[in-house]
């Protein structure tokens, strides 16, 4: 059943607002983190291609993963925003991108 004019909780502030939205819509935070990840990845890769002619997609994926992990870590400070599964998946995606990056080119 759809919920309209949903009452916000008794938490105040912007983080309380996000926590209430996250409680009501559990998929909000994973999609937000995915948006951050793919935006940084695609925009960084395209910008590098435009400026230098070639783009390093695995490296930008790693950069996007590290930034997304940082955002996810900040979300752990307020209870109710992010759950541990989402946090761990964010970190493991970053590690996977790092693995691809380090094996995608000659390091020396």
């Amino acid at each position, binding site marked *: 059943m759809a919920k309209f004019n949903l009452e916000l909780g008794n938490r105040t502030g912007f983080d309380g607002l996000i926590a209430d939205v996250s409680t009501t819509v559990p998929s909000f935070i994973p999609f937000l983190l995915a948006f951050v990840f793919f935006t940084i990845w695609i925009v960084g890769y395209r910008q590098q291609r435009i400026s230098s002619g070639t783009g390093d997609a695995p490296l930008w994926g790693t950069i996007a993963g590290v930034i997304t992990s940082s955002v996810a*870590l900040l979300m752990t400070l307020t209870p109710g925003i992010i759950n*541990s599964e989402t946090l*761990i998946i964010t*970190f493991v995606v970053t590690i*996977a991108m790092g693995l691809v990056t380090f*094996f995608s080119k000659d390091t020396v």
Partner: protein
Amino acid sequence: MGLKDITISFAMVMIFTVALIGAGIQFASLNNADISIADNNEISTYQDGTNAAGKAYSVDINDSLNAYSKTSLDSDQEAFTGGSFLQPTIMTQTKDSFGNIISMIYVHILGGGGETGTNSYATILYIITGTLGILIVFYVYKFAVGKNPD
């Protein structure tokens, strides 16, 4: 990518993994966060395993370097033809840490761990064998028709 690049890549991945997970654990500890990456016991196990492999890696390298620097040759002795004292243990440690990282990726991203159903090793094996099957068909086609399958 030669042996030098592969070894350095292994080491870099090890450092990256230990540093990233360590930063996550320390962040939660220092800020008294409600949710920590260490809440999952498997992550702590992977972190400990990779950490131990990294330490053993550095110890093995030191031992190998000592063995190398303390090696001497007599005047009538033939020179070494290979670096046998450098070979085995270093790759063992990198393999251990790499196995930890691959397990972590497999369990937490690919949903592995189960023995039956969709979340099983069988899914990945089906994909790999299916791809090999397609390649076999391509090469049979190349043999029969005499053209490049690409």
